[in-house]
């Protein structure tokens, strides 16, 4: 059996009628009319409505719909609220005009004050819905330690140091609700007007002032007493929130460490007598950990990501050290894919034959992609025919020229090798 709750989506004031309607299957206006009608019986309906507002929990957002009304749109449902208040006032006046014994001087302030309370409570709902919404939103962000910076081309990830997850992120994720102060102000004003209207005609001004003073002193006293508790409570809540986020990030790190780092360390201990294998394992792990921590490559499907894959695979296969530097990025289409394939050959050649570190530089500027693969290895004589030369011509030069690019290979024995590939007129700058 579903519990009755207040509706988030169908509400005029507090969502009580909408909630009842969702629960019973009756149209909401039936309940609205009923509450309005009974409100005229010495305010019974209003009282009942207020009670239900307090007692019923705010319902979940309608499934499939986007998060609860964490909106900073219009400051108030002014229309709905004023509608209710003015209808009530109008009914009162009508009844009085018909000769029914209604004290407008009593009822009008009460309705105003009730309206004020409604606005304030409504704001409370809003705040709790927002809090819930922001929690839901922060949850999926936590698995990665890196909060990817907004669209920075080359290496635009804002790394959080491992083990130091930034709890401040959680608060910053939610834009402040700018309408909140307005709502609170309107609520307090309505409430104040109602109280004044209720009190003033009945007590002399001097007494009223004294009453206000006494009340203020009492409230201040209560605030002083309650303040330590309140601040401790809010601090505890904040701490709990931070602790939750920390725990999630810690779990993500632990999973990562367990899945890869610990496994690799175990493997390394087993293979301790094979230095080459140990080196390969350590390097592979380092590369994976690094890419996880710093996410240097671009979004998948981009040139930067494709080259990062090429470099990573080559490093793993040939036990070489290759540095990749990318400036700008582009989406990989067929022509860029050919360029990447040619780059792979060049990088593999460097790793296989050079016997020295290599640098891969890719730059996307003004619709032109340049990839440069340079090593400081043994080099070769391009004029002498060899297996390498054949490979270079077929797999690098022909590939790039086939898609309208240029390729140049520069090498001399002892001078290292440099392969430069240029692909002009490439469209669609990558994100």
């Amino acid at each position, binding site marked *: 059996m579903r519990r009755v709750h207040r509706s988030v989506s169908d509400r005029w004031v507090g969502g009580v009628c909408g909630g009842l309607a969702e629960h019973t299957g009756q149209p909401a206006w039936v309940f609205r009319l009923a509450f309005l009608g009974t409100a005229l019986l010495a305010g019974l309906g209003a009282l009942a409505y207020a009670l239900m507002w307090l007692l019923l929990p705010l319902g979940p957002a309608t499934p499939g719909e986007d998060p609860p009304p964490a909106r900073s749109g219009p400051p108030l449902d002014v229309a709905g609220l004023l509608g209710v208040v003015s209808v009530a006032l109008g009914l009162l006046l009508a009844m009085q005009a018909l000769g029914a014994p209604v004290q407008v001087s009593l009822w009008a302030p009460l309705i105003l004050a009730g309206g004020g309370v409604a606005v304030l409570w409504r704001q409370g709902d809003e705040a709790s819905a927002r809090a819930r919404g922001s929690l839901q939103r922060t949850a999926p962000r936590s698995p990665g330690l890196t909060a990817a910076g907004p669209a920075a081309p080359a290496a635009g990830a*804002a790394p959080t140091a491992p083990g130091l997850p930034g709890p401040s992120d959680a608060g910053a994720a939610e834009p402040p609700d700018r309408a909140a102060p307005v709502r609170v102000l309107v609520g307090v004003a309505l409430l104040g007007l109602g109280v004044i209207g209720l009190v003033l005609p009945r007590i002399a001004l001097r007494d009223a002032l004294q009453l206000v003073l006494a009340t203020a002193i009492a409230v201040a006293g209560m605030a002083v007493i309650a303040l330590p508790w309140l601040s401790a409570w809010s601090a505890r809540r904040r701490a709990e929130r931070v602790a939750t986020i920390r725990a999630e990030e810690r779990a993500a790190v632990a999973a990562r460490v367990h899945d890869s780092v610990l496994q690799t360390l175990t493997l390394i201990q087993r293979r301790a007598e094979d230095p080459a294998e140990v080196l390969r394992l350590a390097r592979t792990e380092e590369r994976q950990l*690094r890419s996880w921590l710093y996410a240097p490559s671009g979004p998948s499907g981009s040139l930067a990501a494709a080259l990062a894959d090429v470099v990573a695979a080559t490093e793993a296969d040939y036990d070489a050290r290759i540095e990749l530097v990318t400036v*700008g990025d582009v989406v990989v289409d067929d022509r860029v894919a050919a360029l990447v394939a040619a780059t792979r050959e060049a990088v593999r050649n460097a790793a296989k034959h050079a016997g020295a570190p290599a640098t891969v530089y890719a*730059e996307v*500027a003004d619709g032109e992609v340049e990839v440069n693969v*340079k090593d400081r290895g043994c080099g070769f004589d391009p004029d002498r025919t060899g297996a390498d030369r054949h490979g270079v011509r077929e797999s690098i030069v022909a590939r790039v020229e086939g898609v309208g690019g240029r390729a140049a290979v520069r090498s001399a024995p002892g001078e290292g090798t440099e392969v430069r590939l240029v692909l002009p007129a490439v469209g669609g700058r990558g994100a």
Partner: protein
Amino acid sequence: MPEQAEVDPARAPGGRLRVVLVDDHALFRAGVAAELADAVELVGEAGDAPRAVAVIRATRPDVVLLDVHLPGGGGRAVLDACVPELPATRFLALSVSDAADDVIGVVRGGARGYVTKSVDARELREAIERVAAGDAVFSPRLAGFVLDAFAGGSVAPAPDELDQLSPREREVMRYIARGYTYREVARELVLSVKTVETHVSAVLRKLQLSNRHELARWAQARGVV
């Protein structure tokens, strides 16, 4: 190896360079110390920022090898404390991280260069000597960051000279990003090595002083103004 003679011997100091090594991993310190033992005089070590500041103040070294990530405020805290009062001490940042904001953060904090920890012993020695001589040390990756940060075209032409690279500086950066040494860049552009060094130092100055929004953003991500 032709790069061996990269650093002009005329500018190399007579005695051995005095170096302080700041890194929170004792193992890494030991490794670097062993690699550099016959090239420089290691006058101090520190494992966190406050101790590093104390050691640097006490020893006044020529060069500080400074880890970007340090307990007690990071390399940035060391730079903030030492750069203003010790103008003769040069800082070379070392990092495992390839993240742009790390690099930009320390360079804007006053480091004269940046190398990754995977750098080999010979390159590290060269970098130390170069920094000690007052020049800037750019890794290919740092050059890539600079090209990215100062990318033209998309941004409105900057009124400030600090916000743009000259065509020559851009060219030099591009060669460094491709993996060229300063000497190779000089040969390629038909310049003297000294001129290349001047261009790189000019880029370093722009990197430190420019207010381009990419740099500001990266710096901000490190809590740097």
